[in-house]
């Protein structure tokens, strides 16, 4: 057994109500590690031949819930969810911080592959070397907070009954979907711990489409053995010392950035990206920490970064709302992008989105898109049932519920911004596509490219196999592959210490995982495979690399305000950088992996399929 792995995976078929333990060959694990990489490999092996006909929300799709060899051992424990994305029709490695992956590994499993569809709502309960399908009809329809409360108590009681004499059972950990996922909102997330979401990719909708409310795990075993146990202890000490020394991130998390990325770098979405500048100092640390933070240092398993902070509103109309910070992304998407600049309103929308089970970036992107259509008179009170002015937290609350319940225009908006825009263009006879801020159907994270001052430049999203995902942006086809490593070894990018990371990976696995080996080997292999699946696409949308490897139209409009007013993303430079990137990862001029590249990456079995994508 390779080190770092529990050694077994679970194959779950919800239609047949079967659960089977499987192992995967060491060569596959070495080539793809886990998480994002392994998901792409297994999806290709099992669904690749008929990929373009697989409905992401049909029973034939496979939802993967995977750890990696570094998960829970490396600081910052995360779970990686994937499958055929109902947004991009490709795959996204979508990760969330949680104790769930630790519990899963301690129960003896590295992950799950879930296919089929249960005849009624179910959840999976995973305990030491055991998994079972259980009724979830009593939690179907429940918000995130209630789901956790009910399942924690129920599972703890059940385990206590099974083994009553061992002392107090601790609660399990879980991933679950809210009403958004149950109702197949394409931007639904897979959530954990109320506020942590695997958001990009829309896997909450996939989970909901399978009638799978939650996966709950409690493991009493140890984490897997590592290759060099003594070295691990030393490296853990070094690692945590370094993380603890990074003080501002620990104190503020990314929550300081709600002002910074607006006022300084001018790359924060404001009113559906019509602007990327604001100077509202309310949208940052002190106004949140002083009034709302009830836990200023909050962390997940084996994390000393503690960039999370818990906010709770204790007075006023939103009393009782709980969320984390919000972090920068949700300050922007549940705040500035809706024209909201009040911390309490921002926390409220963030808490609501989490509880409903939307992805906090992508779902509110659709809210902002709808508000722009309202501003332009394209959507009206008749479509919505209420007015939708910028900055009105109450109106956005109503709209979020409308989408989750799929009522009125909410049923269209639940299809994600891109698909909703296609339908609204047809319905209204007006081209609304210029107002969609997405790449490959995936709404863009809260970092613009126009000012060129943020970490997201020119082709960051345009050439990414994960579209608008700001956690996996592209630059030179080498350095950017580190994020593929973090999503496949599966640990938190905010816990990565780049000059220790590769040594740590060797200490755990014993494999020759170096930056260079990865960035010229496994990393390239995984993106080549993801690229192939993305371009195969279907059934409803097939992307054309010549037109769709690009930024949304809005990123070519000049910034109207702020220190970079007049600036825009340079289209000619984007085209040039795209060619550089394709060449760096071994793709042809249209961005299709070449025969030689596939051979070099041990992906020769893709050749007949990829050949059809080449012109």
């Amino acid at each position, binding site marked *: 057994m390779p080190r770092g792995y529990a050694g077994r995976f679970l194959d779950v078929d919800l239609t047949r109500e079967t659960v089977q333990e499987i192992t995967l060959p060491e060569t596959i694990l070495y080539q793809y590690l886990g998480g994002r990489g392994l998901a792409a490999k297994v999806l290709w092996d099992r669904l690749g031949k008929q990929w373009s006909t697989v409905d992401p929300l049909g029973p034939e799709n496979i939802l993967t819930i995977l750890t990696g060899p570094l998960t829970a051992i490396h600081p910052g424990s995360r779970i990686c969810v994937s499958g055929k994305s109902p947004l991009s029709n490709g795959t996204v490695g979508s990760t969330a911080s949680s104790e769930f992956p*630790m519990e899963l590994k301690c129960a003896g499993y590295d992950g799950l592959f879930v296919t089929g569809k249960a005849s009624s709502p179910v959840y999976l309960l995973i305990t030491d070397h055991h998994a079972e399908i259980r009724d979830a009809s009593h939690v179907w329809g429940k918000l995130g907070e209630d789901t*956790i409360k009910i399942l924690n108590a129920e599972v703890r009681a059940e385990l206590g009954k099974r083994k009553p004499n*061992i*002392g*107090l059972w*601790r*609660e399990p950990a879980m991933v679950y979907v809210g009403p958004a996922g149950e109702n197949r909102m394409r931007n639904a997330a897979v959530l954990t711990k109320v506020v942590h979401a695997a958001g990009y990719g829309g896997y909450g909708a996939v989970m909901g489409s399978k009638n799978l409310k939650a996966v709950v795990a409690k493991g009493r075993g140890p984490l897997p053995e590592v290759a060099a146990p003594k070295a691990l202890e030393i490296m853990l000490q070094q690692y945590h010392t370094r993380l603890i020394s990074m003080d501002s991130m620990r104190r503020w998390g990314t929550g300081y950035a709600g002002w910074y990325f607006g006022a300084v770098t001018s790359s924060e979405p404001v009113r559906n990206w019509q602007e990327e500048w604001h100077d509202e100092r309310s949208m940052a640390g002190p106004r949140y920490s002083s009034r709302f933070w009830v836990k200023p240092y909050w*962390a997940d398993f084996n994390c000393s970064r*503690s960039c999370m902070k*818990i906010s709770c509103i204790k007075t006023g109309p939103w009393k009782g709302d709980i969320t984390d910070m919000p972090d920068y992304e949700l300050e922007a998407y549940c705040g500035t992008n809706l024209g909201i600049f009040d911390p309490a309103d921002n926390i409220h929308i963030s808490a609501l989105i989490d509880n409903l089970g939307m992805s906090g970036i992508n779902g509110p992107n659709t809210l902002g898109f709808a508000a722009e259509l309202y501003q332009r008179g394209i959507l009206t009170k008749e479509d919505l049932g209420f007015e939708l002015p910028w900055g009105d937290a109450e109106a956005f609350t109503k709209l979020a519920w409308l989408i989750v319940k799929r009522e009125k225009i909410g049923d269209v908006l639940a299809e994600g911004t891109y698909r909703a825009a296609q339908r609204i263009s047809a319905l209204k006879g007006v081209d609304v596509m210029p107002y969609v801020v997405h790449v490959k159907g995936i709404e863009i994270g809260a970092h613009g490219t126009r000012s060129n001052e943020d970490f997201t430049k020119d082709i960051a999203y345009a050439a990414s196999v994960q579209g608008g995902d700001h956690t996996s942006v592209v630059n030179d086809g080498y350095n950017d592959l580190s994020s593929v490593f973090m999503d496949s070894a599966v640990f938190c990018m905010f816990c990565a210490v780049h000059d220790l990371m590769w040594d740590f990976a060797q200490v755990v696995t014993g494999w020759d995982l170096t930056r260079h080996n990865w960035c010229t080997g496994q990393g390239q292999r995984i993106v080549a495979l993801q690229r192939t699946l993305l371009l195969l696409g279907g059934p409803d949308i097939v992307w054309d690399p010549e037109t769709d490897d690009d930024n949304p139209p809005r990123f070519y409009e000049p910034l109207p305000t702020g220190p970079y007013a007049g600036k825009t993303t340079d289209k000619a430079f984007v085209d040039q950088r795209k060619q550089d990137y394709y060449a760096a990862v071994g793709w042809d001029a249209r961005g299709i992996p070449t025969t030689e590249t596939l051979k070099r990456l041990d992906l020769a079995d893709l050749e007949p399929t990829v050949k059809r994508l080449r012109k």
Partner: protein
Amino acid sequence: MSSIWIVRDYIRCTGCQRCEVVCSLRHENRIWPEASRVRVFMPFPGVEVPHLCAQCDDYPCVKACPVSALSVNTQTGAVIVDDGECTSCGLCITACPGTVPFLHPSTNKAVICDLCGGDPECVKVCGDAGYDALRLVKENVGAQKKVHAISPFVLAKDLAVNLFGEKGEEVV
């Protein structure tokens, strides 16, 4: 007798569970949260309760053990389990006012904090991180230690209200 003790400041716990990582590395040579002598209960996200032996002055667990598998280290005041003698009867667990001891997931023997012989690992990592949810004090805390031998679920209910106000009444 006991001159060292671990003070717990529950509200400062971040839930990182590094106490469990280092405790299990020391005692089990593995990262093994469910074999850690300190376990952080979190019945609702954000409501985190580090749960470990409080070294009650009157040691009800030691008194309850029918085979004298438990003894008190006179240097530290910690309860020491003799694995060879322990019969896994669980009487120490029921005798504890906080239900702190538990049976080891592999050996099935009672597991109780031994204060790492006087220099607890959990305290070091919690202090290094600046949280001080667990802190070592060198004073004779006496009988009042026993108030910390309490169910983590009782504490969780209180902490939830402290953190979330009225909403806290609903979540745990």
